[in-house]
């Protein structure tokens, strides 16, 4: 018995000439919630469908608890799948939809009734058992799809863009509900999403997938704070990219002629007396101000480049044209497709100059 619940080894998939999955390898521990994150058409769904058994890999292996699954039919894999558009059976009531998998297993009527009612409770759908899918809201349909997938007690749950078709505020609710439910049931879950906020919020582990390749596998914090590739750095979070012309104080010589990336949270903007380490800061001019409710988004010009930073609404307000100090805490420097994080040298200067 392997320690990995899901073990994907060197899987390749071609659609004719098109190489949809390139040497995919990753492992998932039991009970973890793993997000497959990447742009549309990047090959996330193909990976999910191969694990479900709905597509066959051209080579490589997929193992569940150390057992090879390549030739096992989807019916016998012990998986539950929630499809992007839910794929509910429109001609069946909510109850019959959820009971479908149990009916297939020829469970007793009383068992089915008990189990379905339990799932209706779990998914906050009590009392809706007699409705048809077309009489439900998007969020409710989504939860019926969950309940249906969970009914036969699968060992692995696979979700394809589970929240894509749902209103923004309902999506937020459903996300935390999903996280809680999965913690409670302890079921190993893989979900596909193109929404990084969603992946970062609920996943234990994230697989960043781009052009059929896994770019990086790590926790949300690792993915966010130490991107390993050019693509991951650009894809995750907001950023400004440019080739600096020796204008940012504290990064002398580190990024000459190379492209760098700065995130708003790397940039501290303040009036000259507000910055704790004035020696590490550069001088800039405020060019634009956007009110974001919780903070101000400030566009500041430093040596001909526009940087974006956030400023608390609690601090004294800035005006366009104000001269400000800009402390850039760190940069991401690209080199041959790799992303390196460089900290501001003066922040850690052994002999700082105090004025």
């Amino acid at each position, binding site marked *: 018995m392997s320690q990995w619940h899901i073990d994907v080894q060197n899987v390749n998939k071609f659609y004719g000439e098109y190489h949809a999955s390139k040497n995919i390898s990753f492992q998932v521990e039991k009970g973890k919630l793993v997000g497959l994150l990447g742009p549309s058409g990047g090959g996330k769904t193909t990976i999910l469908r191969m694990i479900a*058994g709905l597509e066959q890999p051209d080579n490589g292996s997929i193992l569940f608890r150390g057992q090879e699954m390549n030739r096992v039919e989807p019916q016998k*894999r012990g998986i539950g*799948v929630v*499809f992007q558009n839910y*794929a509910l*059976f429109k*001609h069946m009531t909510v109850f019959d939809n959820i009971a479908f998998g149990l009916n*297939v297993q020829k469970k007793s009527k009383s068992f089915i009734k008990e189990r379905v009612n339990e799932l209706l409770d779990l998914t906050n759908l009590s009392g809706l058992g007699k409705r048809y899918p077309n009489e439900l809201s998007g969020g409710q349909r989504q939860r019926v799809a969950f309940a249906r997938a969970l009914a036969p007690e699968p060992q692995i749950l696979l979700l394809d863009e589970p929240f894509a078709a749902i209103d923004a505020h309902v999506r937020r609710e459903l996300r935390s509900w999903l996280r809680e439910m999965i913690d409670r049931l302890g079921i190993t879950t893989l979900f596909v999403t193109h929404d990084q906020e969603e992946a970062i919020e609920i996943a234990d582990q994230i697989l960043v997938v781009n052009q059929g390749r896994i770019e990086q596998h790590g926790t949300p914090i690792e993915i966010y704070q130490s991107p390993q590739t050019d693509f991951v750095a650009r894809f995750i979070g907001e950023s400004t990219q440019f080739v600096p012309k020796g204008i940012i104080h504290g990064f002398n010589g580190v990024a000459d002629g190379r492209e760098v990336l700065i995130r708003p949270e790397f940039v501290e903007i303040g009036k000259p007396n507000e910055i704790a380490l004035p020696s590490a800061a550069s001088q800039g001019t405020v060019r634009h101000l956007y009110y974001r409710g919780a903070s101000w988004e400030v566009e500041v010009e430093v040596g001909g480049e526009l940087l974006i930073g956030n400023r608390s609404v609690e601090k004294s307000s800035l005006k366009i044209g104000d001269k400000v100090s800009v402390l850039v805490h760190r940069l991401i420097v690209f080199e041959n497709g790799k992303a390196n994080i460089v900290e501001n040298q003066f922040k850690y200067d052994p002999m700082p100059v105090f004025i």
Partner: protein
Amino acid sequence: MSTRRTSSVIPGFGLTMGYTIVYLSLIVLIPLAGLFFKMGSGDWQHIIEVITSPRVLAAFRVSLLTSLGAALANGVIGLLIAWVLVRYPFSGRKFVDALIDLPFALPTAVAGIALTSLYSPKGWMGQLFGEIGIKIAYTPLGISLALLFIGLPFVVRTIQPVLQDAETDVEEAALTLGASRWVTFWKVILPTLLPSWLTGVSLAFARGIGEYGSVVFISGNMPMKTEIVPLLIITQLEQFDYVAAASIAVVMLLLSFLMLFVINTLQWLARRRMQNT
């Protein structure tokens, strides 16, 4: 006007509705009403005698049973053909797809003559079936065969678009829930197709009842055995008994209407649940 009408993209409800009613009156309602007038002008005793005569009753039986049989058989075969055409991308699919419409275009008499010469006891297929003791031409089986040919496109063409639109992820969902292919077909695919299947079958059935051209050649037209109602109506017309012809036609019309009504109700029940999703 006190209430505001909801505006539609293309205006002109009054004009188009008026046109619809005038058109339907001229083409459908007035001729059919004429039928009832003709029957009403006759002697009731004579009418009842005609309608209840054994020969007419036998013709009704033959017409309804052969049409129903052919429509149901077409329901099975048509579903299969539609499935093959939609789901499998084989070479020559476009050609096969075009063949389906042939019964629409071909003069039905041509089809009747072709089928008769093939399936008569001396024809190609007729000889083969004759050896195993099955007579096709000049029996009710032959009539059904002709109606099978006539009705096929109705079933295929009504199921095809629905099958094309059907999401395959519903089938995949059934598979991942542990359902075999067989269970998936019966419990998931078939119920989705039911409304359009019923439409196709009822169209084929209605067409079968009215079919004349292809059937008269292959049926042999033996009174009490293989005589269909439309033929009986022609026979009455040839004897200048217009009242009798109109009476038979009216009964036929009412029977067809009743059966279509039943089928449409079933279809409505099946479709009602599946709207909007």
